[in-house]
């Protein structure tokens, strides 16, 4: 169900989707409140639209009342929806910076990293973009935050001896 959001948000991203060439959704982040049904519908339509585009076409397209900015990296499509007045090129670079962050964190990121560590992909995204706005553009600062968290985690894991039941 819907709520208020301003008519002219400043550079507010509406949502970000990552999906594979086969159309499998790998990550979804919604910055405006929508019902699950609506989200599924949007995803379905958009994945179809973007996959149908040929290489070398422009990275922007009008879709409903939004602008879609997308880019393909290997087998994955990164796709952001922004508002009519928003800056397309800087959004394209938001995508690129996110890819760089994933790449640096996982070391040559591939689709599998994102599948098996989807929660990490979300955490990195939250450090970089919050509420659809860029929060921190420095690669160092974002990764520092994530790595600190990993350290916390590892030190806490040490006192967790046997993981016998972990298979279930």
């Amino acid at each position, binding site marked *: 169900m*819907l709520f208020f959001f301003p008519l002219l948000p400043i550079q507010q991203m509406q949502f970000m989707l990552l999906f594979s060439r086969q159309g499998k959704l790998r990550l979804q982040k919604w910055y405006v409140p929508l019902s699950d049904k609506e989200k599924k519908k949007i995803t379905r339509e958009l994945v179809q639209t973007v996959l149908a585009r040929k290489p070398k076409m422009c990275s922007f397209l009008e879709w409903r009342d939004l602008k879609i900015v997308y880019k393909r990296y290997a087998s994955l499509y990164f796709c952001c929806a922004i508002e009519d007045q928003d800056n397309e090129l*800087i959004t394209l670079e938001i995508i690129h910076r996110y890819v760089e962050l994933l790449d640096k964190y996982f070391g040559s990121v591939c689709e599998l990293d994102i599948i098996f560590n989807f929660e990490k992909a979300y955490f990195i995204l939250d450090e970089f973009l*919050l509420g659809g706005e860029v929060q921190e553009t420095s690669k160092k600062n974002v990764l520092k935050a994530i790595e600190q968290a990993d350290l916390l985690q*590892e030190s806490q894991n040490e006192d967790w001896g046997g993981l016998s039941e972990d298979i279930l």
Partner: protein
Amino acid sequence: MPAVSKGDGMRGLAVFISDIRNCKSKEAEIKRINKELANIRSKFKGDKALDGYSKKKYVCKLLFIFLLGHDIDFGHMEAVNLLSSNRYTEKQIGYLFISVLVNSNSELIRLINNAIKNDLASRNPTFMGLALHCIANVGSREMAEAFAGEIPKILVAGDTMDSVKQSAALCLLRLYRTSPDLVPMGDWTSRVVHLLNDQHLGVVTAATSLITTLAQKNPEEFKTSVSLAVSRLSRIVTSASTDLQDYTYYFVPAPWLSVKLLRLLQCYPPPEDPAVRGRLTECLETILNKAQEPPKSKKVQHSNAKNAVLFEAISLIIHHDSEPNLLVRACNQLGQFLQHRETNLRYLALESMCTLASSEFSHEAVKTHIETVINALKTERDVSVRQRAVDLLYAMCDRSNAQQIVAEMLNYLETADYSIREEIVLKVAILAEKYAVDYTWYVDTILNLIRIAGDYVSEEVWYRVIQIVINRDDVQGYAAKTVFEALQAPACHENLVKVGGYILGEFGNLIAGDPRSSPLIQFNLLHSKFHLCSVPTRALLLSTYIKFVNLFPEIKTTIQDVLRSDSQLKNADVELQQRAVEYLRLSTIASTDILATVLEEMPPFPERESSILAKLKKKKGPGTVTDLEEIKKERSSDMNGSAEPASVNASAVSTPSPSADLLGLGAAPVTNSAPPPSSSGSLLVDVFSDSASAVAPLAPGSDDNFASPDLASSEVVSEEPADTVHDADELFHKFVCKNNGVLFENQLLQIGLKSEFRQNLGRMFIFYGNKTSTQFLNFTPTVICSDDLQSSLNLQTKPVDPTVDGGAQVQQVVNIECVSDFMEAPILNIQFRYGGTFQNLSVKLPITLNKFFQPTEMSSQDFFQRWKQLSNPKQEVQNIFKAKHPMDAEITKAKIIGFGSALLEEVDPNPANFVGAGIIHTKTTQIGCLLRLEPNLQAQMYRLTLRTSKEAVSQRLCELLSEQF
């Protein structure tokens, strides 16, 4: 399987994900998932208390299942439990689950808020960060209620860590967007502005987004941000590429921050302080200069980031629209991009130039690129780029290049993608009309449109060409000749048959002198298409035939033979059959004189809206359209006609059997007394209404009850139970969105209203009903305007008979002229004597500013452009209020239409919102109005925003409309 796990090893999760990936079929996947769900459910329900790690793992699995697209209906409680864990990763997964699967379950929200509160108070920056992220991700109203007061404190506290400040700023922004009413402005605002000076660029980046949104709504309070933003921007654009270290992106210093700062500046007019203004101009020039420098890197990221800043700078230049030099430079820069090898840049250049075309300073400069743009239309391989080229051609079109642009668009239409054809057709039609110097060109253009893209030519377009031909004598002969020639084509579009049939029916005589287009040839040509056409077109052609009977008596028998044939007289379609029967009868019994009168040439159309406006009326649904048609008809006769329209209408059309009679003339003699405009007017409605229901409006006697107050009052009474006596104010508000009904009622008297408005004029009929059996004496109703109101509203009333018999009703007419916009409502005072006692009462007369609305249809793009143009804070008025009635979308739509504005569909990105547009007509001026209504079902609230060019108008319309929901 490279089950890569950084940091944490949730092996069970990795195994599960592998299993899912190995599933060969959808069924297998679902089976595996159901097995897992059963397992998790039993773990959660089991007697053994789960440790934090297992809980985290299972919650994470649930999350994964949800993200695969399956519904999850449990596990929320376990996730909430994780929030209070002391282990960072457990907390983190708990928050992630909550962020992705928000649940409006109030019990949970309370628990979640509690956990967030603890983390915010923990002083542990990583915990605070998680809590803030969660608020920013969920952003619900309940969270705003709980934290909107707390977060500003965290944001401006001296000891808050930078990373927490960043999250707090964006978190607050999200809450402000969700619930602006809950975020209190206060001392913190001035301190937030100073974050623009912060040493940490990440903090500045986050804060700038917040400040921009706040500044949009509270420009005065954030005025100081302008000079701070300019100096920050100046420092960035003049810095060397290495100065900003990690904030430099591919040799471009802080591109994201630069873009945000330039956005912030677009909330304000050009700075008044000459020093600040000078510095800003320098910045913009520097950015433009840099675009000309050789690239520092070949990577596309370098040029993208650099150009992102450049495009935003150009947006600011266009927004200021005050520096001709910069505008022209911007235009030249974009001109270079038009031929860039990067598709993205060509796309953006075309898009950006559209706005430049609307500035008087750069319109001419944009026009110089016409050849390049036309070339783009022909050669671009990507349809979205071609679409932009069409938009730009449309935007740069003026009298000097209209013929060329229209020709190119027509040319393009032949091969255009189906998805954009209709839009191009509309654009061509609008341009052709707007810039037609020569109407033969206009006619050619529209006929070409129909030829090339007939399926995409909406009715409005061909209605419009007929209106124009009817109204312009000089083009009628040409139009007849041209459609005649076009109809020769072996396969022509049905729309052409319609236009051809109509025009030849009116003006076929103008070309009948030429033996090649003799009456018989014209008739045979049209009739050769008849059997291929749909019912409405055939109905139209039958009208053409009867018109031919009048124009060309020599082919009367041929036509009668056709009408008499079984395929007509016994046609299965009632409408066609009726026309055939009646036309045949008419042609047989009416004398030449009568035929000439009945079938006279159409009178000129009143100058009315262009096709786009008409299109909007269609969208309102068939019911309202008929209504509007009727009202329009009444209005056109009323407003232009005599002083007492009701009686004229009634006498002219008191046909005994109106329903069966197509032309409103049951027998020939009636025609004699009926003035020609009313009969030909009927034909007009006939042809212009698109369905078989065309008959209905042709029976004006039945739908007009102005002449019979009794009827009016009985209708009114049935609408309102007689025994309810409403608060007068409430009744007043009911009339804001409707024109008819009961205004006042007590035991003695009932006051009913019927009113109609067109542009800045209106007429109101007031019906006073005596509910008693005793006479009212000295009955004196008076309409009173305050001094203020008198200067803006001109009201003329006629006195009524001072005696009102028991059970009788009298009627009073008020003629209304709106001179300028106004706030208050006139007062209706009524005094009379009843059974020896003196009665005196006053009610507000519902003549409100919105009555002078003309709806305006526009595209989403136009709407937002205008919306942006009205961004001066004084032009906007906003109100947030509780719903007083059940929140039903259909009712809301009806109210907005009743309010008088157009209801624009598919403009707002959020389909639950309502957007409207219209023009308030006053004698002195016209005021464009845009409105937006956002319902929040959960909170049972609305937010209404009005933007108009005049503060008082925004204010008044907002007040009036807020009372309606």
